[in-house]
């Protein structure tokens, strides 16, 4: 039986019998709440007693079809279980989950013939009860209704759940189709035929040999006899013919009947076949519907899951976004200074009309927001780690490699006459900070963080545990540098010996030759020869490159920083001593002090690459054995005493090099009290000079260390009133192409 419309559904509920094979339904039945209390719809309801349930036989079942059978809830009945005493499955409607006010009855995995138990409290209408009483008690015969099938696809959908509605009034089920009649078999037909086969009587011919004696009387008698016989024969023949006719007619009739039966049989057969096919297709359809429904249910579940996933996605995204926003607005969390980058981070701009109009105010706010983002150091470090995953980083190059210019083969002949206007700057550092930034923390030396001046770093190559800086030659800046150096003597009133020292950097000294030959860094030896040959009015200390090459396997340059170590500076000092004609103090005479955990400019310049962090540098300082005073004057006028070698154990890992004479300052005056009658010298330098200067102490009574970038005055003024025996210029090769330094030099030697 197929019910195609919801209205036709008769939720028949009878206790299951073992003879009936239950069918599994996989769907949910939503019973509108009205159905529970509406008497109309429960008109034909039979109330049974609990004991009926337990005994397994309903006591009163009507012949017409109830919608629902209600029993009182037996206290022992578990809900939705397949077990009760006996075999009847039982559903307890009161325990059903309710979705949107509609109790949902899930018939999944349950057998068809169920008893629905609705507690009597659900039945409010008394007239209904009355009607119950009026119901005649019928005999307890259990009608066989065969299989119940519910066509789910035609059900209305509410919230994606098919709704099974109980009809308002009972619907008589369609008449059970009778089983197809037994086919008329040939055997039966045969039988029938045999029954009606006419018997053909055998007519025996009478043979009469009559004598002709009796004359006419006899003849007459004979004729009479003959006539009589003929009549008889004729009658007989007639009878036979009639019988024959009858027989034939009967045959005809039988044949017709047979044919009719045959036809009927055929029809029956065809019908049966059709029915079989229909059943088959119906079965297939049923299966498909089951599958479809299963997939619908699955889709529904998937959708629920998808919705959950969507909620998770949305929630997690906005949580993270707003967490980041709140973090970003916690102003105190924002860093002001970057240790690794050694610069002051952007500040929140001041509002001015012109900044507003030009748009700088807003873009500066954006810059400030990004630049001082909380936990900047940790985030950038994490970013570098991720960037390391981009490829193999056995050797990495950071920054843009400059080709630079060709190094001339012949030295610069004479100072060029024309005014050189500011040349284009390939390595363009950003604007120099103004005076404001030159402050230290209230002149407290221990907290002094040289927060001024900048120098751009060339491209860095990191190979294994060491880094090196690229060098390129600038044909525009070189002559300016050479001229500045050549003018030192004159600027110092021609009273002093000028020593010119240019130190090579580690890329040409320590990097292995195979790798070095691949790299397009300029040839420092050639550049040094060019510079040394071009300097005028100076005593050139030209063995430095060779000395460093000789000692390249020693710890003469830092791995994570662009400076040389004190040891590397010592070998340059030896060359200086040799040039000057004095005996260098042997290294063994010095006590040493080593500071660990130095991660210098290459570390930060390579984005704090982990490889360099694994093997930090050590800063070994050779402690002066003389009694010395070190007095520092900063560019902003602050003055204080300092140590030649400062204890930097507690200093930031990037700041350890500052142990040497307190870093770069305007003028650092070192007085050697053990040599009061010694010579005086000026050392014009940048940071390479810092590691070098301590070795000069024993040879001089006073050393003035000038960094042109921080000193505002001129050499001429400075040397006016002093006796200066030597002026030593010491820079590294990269400085010869640093326009900031060259500008400062030119200002110094005016």
């Amino acid at each position, binding site marked *: 039986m197929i019910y195609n419309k919801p209205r036709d559904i008769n939720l028949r509920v009878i206790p299951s019998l073992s003879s009936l094979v239950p069918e599994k339904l996989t769907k949910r039945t939503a019973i509108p709440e009205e159905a529970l209390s509406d008497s109309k719809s429960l008109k034909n309801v039979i109330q049974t007693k609990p004991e009926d349930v337990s005994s397994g036989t309903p006591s009163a079942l009507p012949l017409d079809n109830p919608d629902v059978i209600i029993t009182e809830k037996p206290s022992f009945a578990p809900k939705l279980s397949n077990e009760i005493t006996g075999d009847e499955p039982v559903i307890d409607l009161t325990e059903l989950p309710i979705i949107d006010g509609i109790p949902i009855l899930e018939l999944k995995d349950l057998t068809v013939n169920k008893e629905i138990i609705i507690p009597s409290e659900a039945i409010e209408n008394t007239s209904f009860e009355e009607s119950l009483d009026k119901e005649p008690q019928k005999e307890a015969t259990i009608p066989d209704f065969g299989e119940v099938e519910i066509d789910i696809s035609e059900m209305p959908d509410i919230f994606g759940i098919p709704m099974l509605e109980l009809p308002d009034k009972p619907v008589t089920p369609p008449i059970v189709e009778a089983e197809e009649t037994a086919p008329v078999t040939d055997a039966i037909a045969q039988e029938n035929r045999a029954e009606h086969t006419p018997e053909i009587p055998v007519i025996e011919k009478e043979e009469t040999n009559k004598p002709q004696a009796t004359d006419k009387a006899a003849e007459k008698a004979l004729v009479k006899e003959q006539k009589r016989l003929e009549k008889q024969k004729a009658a007989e023949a007639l009878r036979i013919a009639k019988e024959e006719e009858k027989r034939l007619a009967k045959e005809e009739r039988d044949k017709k009947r047979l044919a009719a039966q045959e036809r009927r049989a055929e029809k029956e057969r065809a019908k049966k076949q059709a029915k079989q096919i229909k059943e088959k297709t119906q079965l297939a359809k049923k299966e498909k519907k089951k599958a479809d429904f299963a997939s619908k249910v699955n889709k529904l579940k998937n959708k629920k*899951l998808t919705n959950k996933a969507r909620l998770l996605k949305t929630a997690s995204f906005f949580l993270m*976004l707003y967490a980041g926003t709140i973090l970003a607005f916690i102003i105190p969390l924002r860093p002001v200074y970057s240790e690794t980058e050694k610069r002051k981070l952007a500040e929140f701009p001041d509002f001015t009309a012109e900044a507003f109009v030009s*748009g700088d105010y807003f873009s500066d706010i954006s810059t400030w927001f990004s630049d001082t983002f909380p936990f900047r150091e940790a985030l950038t470090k994490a970013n570098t780690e991720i960037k390391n995953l981009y490829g193999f980083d056995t050797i990495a190059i950071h920054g843009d490699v400059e080709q630079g210019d060709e190094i001339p083969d012949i030295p610069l002949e004479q100072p060029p006459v024309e005014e050189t206007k500011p040349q284009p700057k390939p390595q363009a550092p950003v604007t120099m900070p103004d005076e404001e930034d030159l402050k230290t923390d209230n002149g407290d030396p221990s907290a002094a963080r040289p927060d001024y001046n900048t120098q751009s770093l060339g491209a860095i190559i990191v190979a294994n545990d060491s880094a090196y800086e690229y060098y390129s030659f600038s044909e525009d800046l070189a002559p300016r540098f050479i001229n500045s150096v050549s003018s030192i003597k004159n600027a110092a009133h021609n009273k002093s010996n000028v020593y010119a020292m240019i130190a090579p950097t580690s890329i040409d000294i320590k990097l292995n030759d195979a790798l070095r030959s691949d790299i397009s860094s300029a040839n420092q030896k050639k550049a040094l020869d060019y510079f040394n040959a071009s300097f005028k009015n100076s005593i050139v200390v030209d063995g430095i490159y060779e000395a460093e090459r000789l000692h390249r396997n020693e710890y003469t340059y830092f791995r994570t920083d662009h400076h040389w170590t004190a040891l590397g500076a010592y070998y340059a000092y030896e060359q200086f001593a040799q040039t000057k004609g004095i005996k260098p103090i042997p290294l063994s005479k010095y006590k040493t002090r080593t500071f660990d955990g130095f991660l210098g400019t290459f570390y930060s310049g390579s984005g704090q690459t982990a490889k360099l962090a694994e093997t930090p540098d050590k800063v070994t300082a050779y402690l002066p054995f003389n009694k010395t005073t070190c007095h520092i004057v900063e560019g902003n006028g602050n003055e204080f005493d300092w140590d030649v070698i400062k204890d930097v154990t507690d200093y930031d890992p990037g700041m350890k090099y500052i142990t040497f004479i307190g870093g770069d300052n305007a003028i650092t005056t070192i007085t050697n009290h053990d040599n009061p009658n010694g010579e005086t010298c000026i050392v014009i330098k940048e940071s390479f000079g810092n590691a070098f200067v301590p070795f000069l102490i024993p040879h001089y009574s006073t050393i003035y260390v000038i960094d042109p970038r921080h000193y505002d005055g001129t050499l001429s003024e400075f040397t006016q009133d002093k006796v200066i025996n030597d002026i030593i210029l010491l820079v590294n090769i990269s400085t010869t192409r640093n326009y900031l330094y060259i500008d400062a030099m030119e200002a110094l030697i005016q």
Partner: protein
Amino acid sequence: MVFSSLFFIFAFLPVCMLIYWAARNIKAKNTVLLVFSLIFYTWGEPVYVGLLVFMTLCDWLLALAIEKSDGKEARRKTLIVLTCVINLGLIGVFKYTGFFCENLQNIFGFPENIPQIVLPIGISFYTFQLLSYVIDVYRKEVPAQKNFFWLLLYSSLFYQCIAGPIVRYADVEKEIHNRQTNISEITEGITRFTVGLAKKALIANTCGSLSDTLLVSDTLIASSAQTALVELSSRSVAGMWLGVLFYMLQIYLDFSAYSDMAIGMGLMVGFRFKENFNYPYTAKSVTDFWRRWHISLSSFFRDYVYIPLGGNRKGTIKTYRNIFIVWLLTGLWHGASWNFVLWGLFFCVFLVAEKLGLLKILQKIPAVFSHAYLLTVVFFGWILFRFSNFSFIPVVLKGLFGLNGNPLVDFETKTLFNANVFFIIVAILSVFPLVKKLSEKLKPKKAHTPYSYAYGVVTAIIPVALLILSTLSLVGDSYNPFLYFQF
């Protein structure tokens, strides 16, 4: 303010969304968007925000006037001509005066001083948007917007004002008046937004810096073209190819990322913008490429230039003339410089060739060849696009084919390649719709299985992961120890 900046992501956008959701009705919501859009625009252009408002005001009045003059053909025509004159005139003045004067100077010698006019940001986009609005009103395709502020919302909406897509008024008209959002749209928007952000911050930015290292950076060209030229001519052959490849990737990822973010943010509030990029590097012909690249621009030119000129209905000669004009303008729209015009005409040549039969050939040969053809054409097109200074282009072309006397590979190129080899693979794969296809294949078929739970969780946290990674990358971008250090 750019979408891929920390300020936008962690200050502007969250505050905007918060106030937006707090707004009760559509009027309040629109007001919020309008205010924030104006703030966004003022942030980048504090003075010329007035131009945006002024142009919108003019177009608002003109559109209303056009609608009122329904029936009076001559009047309508005058009004629409006036609109075009004003809009195109303004963009012409601000964008093309310098270009125009330079050319005059080259030919005639005057004017002596080329006026330096500031180019307000987004003018190319909002001018076209407003123009499309008025023309659509003229064509009676859309009713005029009575409320000036809502028209201003349309033209200044920060999602698309600065970097496209060029949104048509007809597409958003209903949504301006009535927007609904549901969880699935918001989720889609979030995914889109974070994908765009990751494309920009993680991939496009790196591609850009790698391209600058391998070729030359714009800052170097600006400060000294001579030095830049010298640097460029010393690049190795492989370095040159890689450099242009990275530029090709960068420009697609950059541009499509902005469109992705615009679409994503739009979805979060209920705007459904049309797609602007459809995996253009998977195209197999130039014709197909331009149906996938900057779709909103090519459809603008199609609807407002090509078709009004007659399209392909007025005979062969006129068709090719129309194509020529459209591509001339497309190139010119991208920048006020001859290399952009040439770039447009470069594509015009191939399009015409394809129309004349090349397309049929391309469809017959195996897909891999037509794909290679397209990529090659586009590759060389980008070289034209990259360098405004014409003297750079022959250097690049020579360098690509080893005619500069440089080695095939040099140490720096090899090192850079090694240090970025996985990244290159990811960047190349990102131009294909792989993730989309993969997520379709991997979708769970049955619910309530461990796999489906895992799938749900993983897809749910991908946007957050991308957000975090992008943030890391953006914080790292402002890290510049090369420019500053002590000693």
